């Protein structure tokens, strides 16, 4: 679409005390209720909306004690600020250096450059004096980062608004209501009806249709005759009363316009008879149709050499998933993405968020009384930069001076890059998001561990401890698949500010490995509560050593459907090679114990859940380590134990 609003900054508006948010062609806003998502949409809408909502006194930020922000002069701040930055882009929505000729001419010479890349940024200030309605003023930015403004108030904002328009589609949308209102997108579209050259023909056909309908219907004929009595009393000169089953005037034709929708083989229903899901969806699609129609009209004018504004539409959608089936929600995301222009969607639907690219997600979260907005960052840019610096060292002959010159920056960049996601991290995350159907994105906390045994057992233990399933508390359990794979999830949780807990095996160098990963991503080891299984144990051995030998043996027999199945196991595998250079030794009491643990390890998926259930049923206490872990989780998330 050639341009994009790539940044918005909001200050002092409700929970948005001071946030700067990057926007993409499509941006998905996630986060709890009251975390500021709708406020962001309202902020932008107050600036660019085709029907602009009023910002009023009540919208000023106040802290939990009801106190306003304090301005530079020490007075309560009565000023709300909304900044937007417009940049030129290519077809993919990636930033390019220059605005094209069309947009240049519309945006004017307020365009500024930043590292030779152009942008146009505008500040809207709402100032509240005594009255409830604010004094609104607009300013150009000379520099976005330092918030340097042009002293002169910006005159051309209406010009911008004529070309960049926001369509705010709130949660109360309904095609049925739309079709009754002239101001809705539907109403606006159908009022532009153009019946082409055949207007006269159409008129005749409608008249014919009306006549035929009445002639063929006894009831209507009767009614018409009765109504004609009216003519006797009023002595009209004209046609007098007439009965028209179909609209008589062409210009009224659209007023009764109805949308019918036929679902598979059923009859075609009028929208009245459809559920809210379909009606809401239809309303969204109509908004898209409206803007693409406008764009078409503009293209026509340009073609004819007529003066015209451009249109860059921005769609703000609140919870488009409302009333829709999960499959429909997934389709909806794709359709939205196909809309011309920019889209900002707030959602609680894992199906929609799960479809989005990780870069498109913005996570809202309330820290005390103000909102924090976070996004997931990738390391490509930093790595590219490092490569360039390495190149510089090389091109300067790898001299000590060259190393001295560039190394400090390289080291700094590497540190930063290590906290960001790599392409491999992305793969792991996307897989997990796909597996848990987007739930990950809405988690209140992550509990990470190594493998499938924990994955099967921990939900049961969690429920035993809390009396609820983990997802009821928003706790997502993630098996990272090996002790080297914590990073992507740690980074993910760090960016989205989701608390994370780790339950790690204690065998070999595992602990060291995990600590390394935490430090790289979080710097502070303490940021991530880490629980390591005692006695260098893995989870299987841990269960065994926690006094559940009996329960394990019962399940083994149950699964193998043999009594004393462990004897069978020992008989067939004793003295065989376990792994290269290690021979199984199942002799003696110790040997039997080893055999039980090995057997569990070899049948993780078959045993784990069953064993956990068995432990649950046994009524025994959970192992101390797990209780510690659960207590830590409940302490941080303020969870109750039932």
């Amino acid at each position, binding site marked *: 679409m050639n341009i994009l609003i790539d940044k918005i900054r909001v200050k002092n508006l409700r929970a948005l005390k001071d946030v700067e948010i990057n926007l993409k062609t499509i941006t998905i806003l996630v986060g709890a209720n009251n975390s500021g998502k709708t406020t962001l949409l309202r902020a932008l809408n107050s600036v660019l909306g085709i029907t602009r909502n009023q910002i009023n006194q009540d919208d000023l930020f106040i802290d939990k004690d009801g106190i306003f922000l304090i301005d530079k002069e020490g007075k309560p701040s009565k000023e709300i600020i909304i900044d937007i930055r417009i940049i030129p882009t290519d077809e993919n929505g990636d930033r390019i250096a220059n605005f094209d000729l*069309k947009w240049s001419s519309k945006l004017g010479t307020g365009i500024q450059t930043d590292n030779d890349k152009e942008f146009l940024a505008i500040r809207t200030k709402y100032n509240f004096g005594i009255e409830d309605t604010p004094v609104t003023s607009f300013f150009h930015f000379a520099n976005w980062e330092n918030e340097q403004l042009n002293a*002169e108030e910006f005159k051309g904002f209406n010009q911008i608004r004529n070309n960049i328009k926001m369509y705010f589609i709130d949660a109360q949308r309904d095609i049925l209501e739309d079709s009754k209102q002239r101001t809705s997108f539907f109403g606006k579209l159908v009022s532009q009806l153009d019946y082409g050259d055949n207007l006269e023909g159409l008129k005749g056909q409608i008249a014919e249709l009306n006549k035929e309908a009445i002639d063929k219907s006894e009831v209507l004929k009767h009614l018409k005759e009765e109504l004609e009595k009216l003519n006797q009393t009023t002595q009209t000169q004209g046609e007098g009363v007439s009965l028209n089953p179909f609209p008589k005037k062409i210009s009224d034709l659209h007023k009764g316009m109805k949308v019918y929708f036929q679902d598979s083989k059923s009859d075609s229903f009028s929208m009245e008879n459809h559920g809210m899901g379909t009606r809401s969806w239809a309303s969204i699609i109509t908004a898209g149709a409206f803007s693409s129609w406008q764009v078409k009209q503009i293209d026509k004018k340009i073609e004819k050499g007529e003066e015209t504004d451009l249109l860059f539409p921005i769609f703000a959608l609140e919870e488009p998933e409302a009333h829709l089936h999960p499959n429909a929600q997934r389709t909806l995301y794709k359709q939205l993405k196909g809309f011309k222009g920019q889209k900002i969607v707030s959602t609680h639907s894992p199906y929609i968020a799960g479809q989005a690219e990780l870069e498109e997600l913005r996570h809202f979260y309330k820290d005390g009384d103000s909102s924090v907005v976070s996004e997931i960052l990738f390391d490509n840019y930093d790595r590219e930069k490092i490569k360039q610096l390495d190149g510089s060292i090389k091109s300067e002959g790898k001299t000590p001076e060259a190393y001295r010159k560039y190394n400090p920056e390289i080291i700094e960049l590497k540190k930063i890059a290590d906290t960001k996601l790599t392409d491999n991290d992305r793969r792991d995350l996307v897989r997990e998001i796909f597996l848990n159907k987007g739930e990950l994105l809405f988690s209140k906390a992550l509990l990470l561990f190594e493998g499938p045994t924990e994955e099967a057992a921990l939900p049961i233990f969690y429920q035993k401890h809390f009396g609820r399933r983990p997802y009821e508390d928003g706790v997502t359990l993630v098996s990272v698949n090996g002790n080297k794979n914590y990073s992507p999830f740690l980074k993910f949780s760090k960016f989205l500010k989701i608390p994370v807990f780790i339950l790690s095996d204690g065998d070999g160098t595992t602990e060291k490995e995990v600590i390394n990963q935490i430090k790289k991503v979080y710097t502070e080891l303490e940021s991530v509560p880490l629980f390591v299984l005692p006695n260098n144990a893995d989870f299987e051995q841990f269960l065994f050593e926690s006094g559940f030998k009996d329960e394990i043996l019962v399940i083994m027999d149950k699964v193998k459907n043999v009594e004393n199945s462990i004897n069978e196991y020992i008989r067939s595998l004793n003295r065989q090679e376990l792994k290269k250079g290690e021979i199984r030794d199942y002799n003696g009491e110790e040997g039997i114990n080893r055999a039980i643990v090995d057997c569990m390890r070899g049948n993780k998926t078959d045993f784990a859940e069953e064993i956990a259930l068995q432990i649950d049923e046994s009524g025994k206490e959970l192992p101390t380590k797990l209780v510690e872990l659960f207590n830590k989780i409940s302490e941080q998330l303020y969870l109750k134990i039932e």
Partner: protein
Amino acid sequence: MSKAILSKEQEVIVLFNEGEGAVLVEAAAGSGKTRILAERVRYLLTEKKDKFFSVLCLTFTNKAAEEMKDRLVGIPKLSERAFIGNFHEFCLAIIRSRYADIGFASPPHIFDQNDGKKILEEVLLSNPILKEIYSFPNEESVEERNKKQRAKLFECADFISTQKRQLIEMIPEFETNYKNWNEKTTLLFQDYNRRLREQNAMDYDDILLYAHRILLKTSVANIYRRTYQYILIDEAQDLNYAQYNIIKAICGAEHKNVLMVGDPKQAIYGFNGSSPEFMQKIFLEDFCAVRKVINKNYRSSKAVLSLAEKIQPNGGVGSNFFEGLAEITAFENEQSEAEFIISKIKYWLSKGFYQEANNEIKEPISFKNIAVLGRNKFVFSSLIKLLEEDSDLKNRYYLKKGLEKFEPESDFFKIFDLGTRILVNPKDNLHFRQIEDLIKLQGPKKSNNLESLLTFYQDDNDITDLNLHLKFWNHLKNNPKSLGWVLEQFNQVLKSESISSSEVESKQISFDLKQLEKLWKSFVRKESPDNQTLTNFRYFLALNNSKENKEEITLATVHTTKGLEFEIVFLIGMNDGVFPDYRAKTVAALKEEKNNLYVAVTRAKRALYITYPNMRKMPWGTEKEQSISRFLKDIN
């Protein structure tokens, strides 16, 4: 306004090459320059199929720009698609939006020539080695010393101005002998500029200089180049080095769509480094421009034209509907010259129109259609005296100035005016000290901002001058768009109390208030309500050179009348030594004087009265015999 009717040759130029490419139009006085420009702009904006571009149309006066805009009213999105204004306005807009590129933290404010001289004096007095050249210790008489100091100041200001007009680059901070200037000159230049910068200020020359520096950045020039795909320059004969290079910076190597309209015969801005060379030679070479000549004068009557033709032959007299009138008359002295002018003015006013036999066209004549022109403002003194004594004409004339500045006479408004400067630019040291001097602040020097004055303010009803000032400054500080309201309040106060005990001062105060109200009104008409801030008003005052064309007779020096036209023109005091000026001795200077005269004569549409006295009173009291201007000798 709808499309104007064009003559064949005007139309050829308007439509030339479908608006593309570089064109130089040498157009004689009265040949319809403004019309050609306006119609070219109209053609570009409405006839070009592509509508996604803007037009930059630069003039030398606000008046010319307003005239252009008036003619183009009705074109869709005109204000979006065309910048029509004078050079300084355009450059100031660039600076105000990109001040950061030239190292300012906020947009710099404008210091005028007087401010500049005061700063220069500070520079000269505060540096021991500069003081040497400024103190003239050997001069015994104070008068003589002052005279020499004034001359020195003028010399220094002229030097700095000349350098800036040559678009001098930034002089490195530690440079002590820039370009072999020697230490003193370098120091002078650096210190002067440093002091301006410290006060977040710039002088008039800086406006062009800074804009040019900003445009040297490729990425910035690129934005303007892309936006203004067509550039038109009015009065191009008066371009100077800086202005021409600003256009070049915007155009770069690829942008060639520049149309310049000018008349080398009217080149009169020579004192600021302007020269018709830029359009006639350099532009032709740099842009490979096509040269077009249009000689026909459509403005002036035949009589006026044939007289102009005798001053500067210009390809003959075109056909005009009017025969017109052009006469040269001698008078005994300035008094009788003035009496004649008054009687002629009254004659035309009472007649109310101009009409010729065998011609149906009747042109209305009122105050605004009449102008009295002179080479300098001293030739008006006898006339002004008579005008003041005449009850009918007393308030119906005005003396046109180059810049319509607000120059208060009363201390009350001097202080108020200075205060508004500090409000918009807290770093303005110069004017703050002027306030201090005026209100004779006691005690230690206050820090340089109005806050320190505002702390004096106590909210009681004690209407001392200062308290009143502080009250309204405070109000303006918190409500930058409220000057209109503040002026209203002044009015109220003036009605109920007398601010000053002196009668003279009271009169001055109410006169100043009226002046300020007038200027505020014309500002308000120009700016949208959102932009009616004190800051914008100060910029407006700094650059304002237009006066509302009211029902008043114009008295003007020739330099200020370019682009204007009047039905009836008096050109008075046409003695040798006045016109040409006695100081014009070189061939070039005399040529410019001739151009001046040509401009003056061609302002007349119908009737031109040239007058001169045979005797003139000298400043020292005696009368001296005068002769007719050498330019007119042969004509008479």
